[in-house]
């Protein structure tokens, strides 16, 4: 990756956004499916709080939580790769001077 993308700052932001949002979206669908096959939303109300949420609301909130987790992970991955590239570019710049 590093050698083929020497200028990560040139990647358009829209493509960065897609690279973060899209894989986490797909993962969230799978995670939501597996999670709610195993657990019924009514067993999950935290701390036995007496709140009334419809199943559809519970699944939707669950989906967005999974998506959020995926976004955090994907963003971290992208951040590390891009910052590594920038460090490498800097070092190479120093050597050529």
């Amino acid at each position, binding site marked *: 990756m590093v050698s*083929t993308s020497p200028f990560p700052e*040139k990647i358009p932001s829209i493509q960065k956004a897609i690279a973060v949002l899209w894989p986490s979206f797909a993962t969230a669908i799978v995670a939501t499916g*597996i999670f709610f096959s195993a657990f019924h939303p009514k067993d999950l109300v935290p701390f036995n709080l007496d709140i009334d949420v419809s199943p*559809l*609301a519970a699944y939707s909130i669950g989906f967005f939580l999974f998506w959020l987790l995926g976004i955090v992970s994907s963003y971290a991955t992208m951040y590390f790769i891009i910052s590594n590239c920038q460090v490498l570019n800097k070092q190479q710049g120093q050597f050529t001077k």
Partner: protein
Amino acid sequence: MQSQKTNTGEQGLYAEHKKIYPREVSGYFTRLRMLSVVVLLGIYYLMPFARWDDRQALLFDLPARKFYIFGLTLWPQDFIYLAALLIMAGLSLFFFTALLGRVWCGYACPQTVWTEAYLWMERKIEGNRGRRMKLDKAPTSAAKIRTKALKHTVWIIFSLWTGFTFVGYFTPIYELGGRLFTGDLGPWETFWILFYSFATYGNAGFMREQVCKYMCPYARFQSAMFDSDTLIVAYHPERGEPRGSRRRGTDFEAQGLGACIDCNLCVQVCPTGIDIRDGLQYECIACSACIDACDEIMDKMSYPRGLIKYTTENAAEGKGQHILRPRVMVYATILLVLFGLLVSNLVLRIPLELDVIRDRNTLYRETRDGLIENVYTLKILNMDEQPHRYILRAEGVDGLKLVTDQEEIFVEASSVYEMVVRLQADEFNLEQRSVPVSFHLQATDANHLSIVEEARFLGPGKT
């Protein structure tokens, strides 16, 4: 294997996106693709309205946690079947890719299908390729705003219908439609209709080939399923080169030219904006629009067709075609085995489940008659679409007594029945502190509906 051009390969990621105006095309493969688009969209938009018995034929009822697939009702416990179906879908993709290349991309992928539909609306409203390009370049005018507004209105209406249909796969669509007209939609139903509409509008109206180029994982790894006998869309440089324009009817060979007249139509019709004459590229979704475009030109020039055609790497090199090869056989075998397992499991599936939960508060208690008693909560899941009556018995200890308040247990179709039962045993018959017992549940009206569930019976043990 996939030979990727270096100048449009990975570096394409950093290029500014140029809007692609695919030129309209006609011909055999275009008709085939349109047929596929119409059939697939027809299935998508009509399926939720299909009925089976007294319910929606295909309904993934999330609130009720039941999936209705025609005659089959799947419960969360049947998750394994869905997983198997997904694995089979993946394997089918491998199998068809190895055999036919990217037919999925060109004919069946929702991205292609909806893009074609949106492109069709765009053409009807804005006109052909030349007019669309001219319109986009033209300065803002009332006419331009009117045309664009009309296009987006039509797109948005179609998107909303698409989103409504999507939610109709998860909520009974007739009720959903009723609530839509009375303005009674739930907040999450509304949200998902809008979400899916927006996704359709964005993907099919604007993102189009960029989804295939930048977002689709299959486009990246499909080359792993390719070999030299996989069907590809290819230009034949040995026949076409050197390309160049010429007068019709002149002897091009005498002029030192190949069959390609360099009309650029194959580039103009390409929905991903590539030049097939540069060789196989990962952007190519094998939609075969360039084949139809080129064949038409070949006809006009009275040259034989097939300068661009479906072929395989081996066939192009004159090595013949091999359809049955190890890779294809392996994919086919795994697919068949999985299919067999799935079908036999579905046929043998017993739509009945019994969960036994021992009362956790007390280990055991002694009755007035001096018997040791354990309390259990039973959950009977009648996953059948008919109601049933069941008889319950328990065994595992000599003289074990089952105490319930009902002889026969009646459970409604597709529902869960919860009941508390007590087991009583004489202390002398209990060898250990904890002995295994089993509950046997048998339907009175159907022999095959029977199930055994193990549990533990706790007592003081031998003293």
